[in-house]
């Protein structure tokens, strides 16, 4: 009996930590709901949709990043791509370019940035961490230059259509943004799990040399993720601008780190070869859920800025626990 419980507990602990954390948060919120003083709209469908909506951008970013991480790379330029893309979309639309064309141009731009990142990191074998970081800085500068550091938005005559891009509610309830996010999730999941390219990414991330000797075109297969990451970043930039009807140059490298962090919390490894679409999504959802829960509990009004501190602590706690778990498995002192 005792060994059964022990086995059961071990099995639960071996489940994805981020998922367990989500369950914990939901559980705690349910407890809070029992007390009328701390009751909140946490479990309402309205909140659920709102939660998805505010995290869809990060999810789209994170899913593109997942492929890059699995293949053993990293893309810290996504903040910059997102910013520039959003601004370019707005500026194009304001000059009369039809919305679909504007979107395509932005995505191609994102792809181009990805191609440059890929060329220098993969073909020239340079450390992607610093290259994409530099690219992000560069693009942030571009964004500032394009907008003279002021936020821009779409002119009135186009704004309704543009806003509808993200915000139009299908079936009266679900914003397009969420649908787009789900589509991206499904696509990335399928790519990683069932395509040759996806499996090759796992191989390359697992062991570059072995993959090379097995006839996998490592250069090509390791480059494509950067293009995908650039495209998803560009897409998310357009969607974000559409969501707010505003293009802003402030996002920069902070976004990239947050997304990579969240994805790692979910279980996709920076070392490569490990992870997946759902794992990453869960990590992102966890962090978004926390933010949401804090809002619902109106912690802000008791101790302002506490949510960010708690979020940082949760990230540290999960990564720490992850490292510690690895340490325990190791024999070394």
């Amino acid at each position, binding site marked *: 009996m005792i060994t059964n419980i022990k086995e059961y507990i071990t099995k639960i602990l071996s489940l994805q930590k981020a998922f367990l954390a989500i369950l914990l948060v939901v559980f705690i919120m349910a407890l809070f709901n029992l007390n009328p003083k701390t009751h909140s709209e946490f479990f309402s469908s309205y909140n659920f949709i709102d939660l998805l909506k505010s995290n869809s951008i990060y999810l789209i970013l994170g899913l593109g990043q997942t492929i890059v991480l699995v293949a053993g790379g990293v893309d810290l330029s996504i903040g910059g791509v997102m910013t520039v893309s959003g601004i370019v979309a707005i500026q194009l639309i304001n000059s009369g370019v039809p919305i679909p064309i504007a979107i395509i141009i932005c995505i191609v731009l994102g792809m181009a940035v990805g191609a440059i990142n890929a060329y220098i990191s993969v073909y020239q074998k340079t450390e992607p961490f610093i290259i994409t970081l530099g690219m992000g800085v560069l693009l942030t500068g571009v964004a500032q230059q394009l907008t003279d550091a002021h936020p821009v938005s779409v002119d009135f005559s186009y704004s309704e259509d543009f806003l509808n891009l993200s915000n139009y509610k299908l079936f009266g309830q679900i914003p397009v943004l969420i649908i787009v996010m789900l589509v991206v999730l499904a696509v990335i999941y399928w790519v990683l799990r069932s395509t040759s390219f996806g*499996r090759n990414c*796992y191989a390359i991330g*697992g*062991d570059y040399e072995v993959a090379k000797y*097995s006839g*996998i075109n490592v250069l090509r297969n390791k480059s494509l993720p950067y293009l995908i990451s650039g495209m998803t970043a560009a897409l998310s930039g357009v969607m974000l601008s559409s969501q707010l009807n505003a293009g802003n140059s402030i996002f920069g490298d902070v976004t990239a780190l947050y997304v990579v962090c969240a994805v790692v919390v979910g279980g996709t490894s920076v070392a490569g070869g490990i992870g997946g679409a759902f794992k990453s999504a869960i990590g992102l959802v966890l962090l978004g859920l926390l933010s949401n829960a804090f809002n619902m509990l109106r912690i802000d009004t008791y101790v302002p800025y506490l949510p960010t501190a708690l979020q940082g602590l949760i990230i540290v706690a999960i990564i720490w626990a992850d490292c510690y778990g690895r340490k325990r498995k190791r024999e*070394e*002192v």
Partner: protein
Amino acid sequence: MKKDNSDAILKIKNVSKAFPGVKALDRVSLEVFTGTIHGVVGENGAGKSTLMKILSGVYEKDEGEVVFDGNKVENITPIQSMNMGLSIIYQELNLINTMSVGENIFLGRFSEMGGRTGVHSKARILLDSIACKIDTQKQVSELSVSDKQMIEIAKALSFDSKLIIMDEPSSSLTAEEMHQLIKIIHELKNKGIAIIYISHKLDEIFNFCDVVTVMRDGHVIDTRNVNAISRNEMISMMVGRTIENEYPPRPNCVAETILEIKNINTKKLKNIQLTLKKGEILGLVGLVGSGRTELVRALFGADKVNKKSVYIDGKLVEINNPIDAINQGLAMVPEDRKLQGLLLQFAVEKNISLSSLANLTSYGFINEKEEGAISERQIKSLNIKTPSAKTRIQMLSGGNQQKAVLGRWLEMKPRILILDEPTKGIDVGAKYEIYLLMKKIVEDGGSIILISSELSEVLHMSNRVLTICDGRINGEFDPSQASADEIMAKAFEFA
């Protein structure tokens, strides 16, 4: 040497390959026949791995001709080589640890094999054909070395290989697993597959190879049937001189006990007890995985322990990490030189002074002159071949790198020196130098714990031999009296 009714599956004629500053292969010619187990021996630097890498498509030959299965081979990539029917199983094992068994077998051929389901079902069939029961969904990182080798063999079979090259396959296998491997090699031979078997372990060559090729300094010295050559002849061909003795005479030792392990208990080790005498070389024999490396690492404070009770010179000591161990006069030359012993990008000098730094420090500052003197001293006394003390140690040969690691520890004048596979991957000449060194160490009053997979090495160098099996010490022998078989039998035994 042509066998009756056999065709040469592989014909190598006058193949040469040069690297900057080194001629790795000089007009090498040999033939391998179907259904033969063809051994290849030679010191490090003889050219064996260069030749294999040319065959497998990693390197391109400078001149000469390679004909495989009747077809001339030029400018091939590794995958082309595999598709041709020539597979190679490297010592370091070419598998991706984070992926499943099935996917590893069909790496790079995911869609061709029909995606997820196709890959796993076909993998199952292949594994069953070599009587391997491993689950194809299992992650490779969870497998033992011998299981991983089975996967590599399955991979080779998946290409319908006609020739399989095995590079030092037995260095990490237990005798039981080796048995299994030999069985499979014979089965492959019966299917008509030719095997090139590279090994430093001459016993293996004599045990199951049909033919052997001896290489030295980029040349093929000779290719003969295994029963037409003696061990001494083979060694002298490998080394280029006759070696009267492979080993120096065994040193005498004092009766005084310097180290006593009353108990060590870890996840793997169960109630280890042993004593080490002053001036003694204690050999530790056990199959890989028996706990021999775990024992010395636990002693040295490198790994976690549950219980540990160690006495040096009769006094109880606390060793919780390598720094404690060093302070108690212990030293350890680890098993894997490249990963655990060397700082490859650093100079020879810095690698040698590594452990002595604390001794060279006063008020926080390092005495650099002393540091230079230390390294010069060791380079000279150990005869380390290096362009200068400031050369990056990566550039040195395996033997010289190992000597540098040894020099690092000798500088500390340890009372107890632990050597874990000290001559692995080192040529016969350098090996002998290391044996002489070991003798000198104990003559000067130090004691050595020697772990080695080469039984003859342990037998010839040790004063006493302990066998360790399944985490327990289960036998003690006097190597001058006991036979190799007796000792190995104990090492096999499961309590």
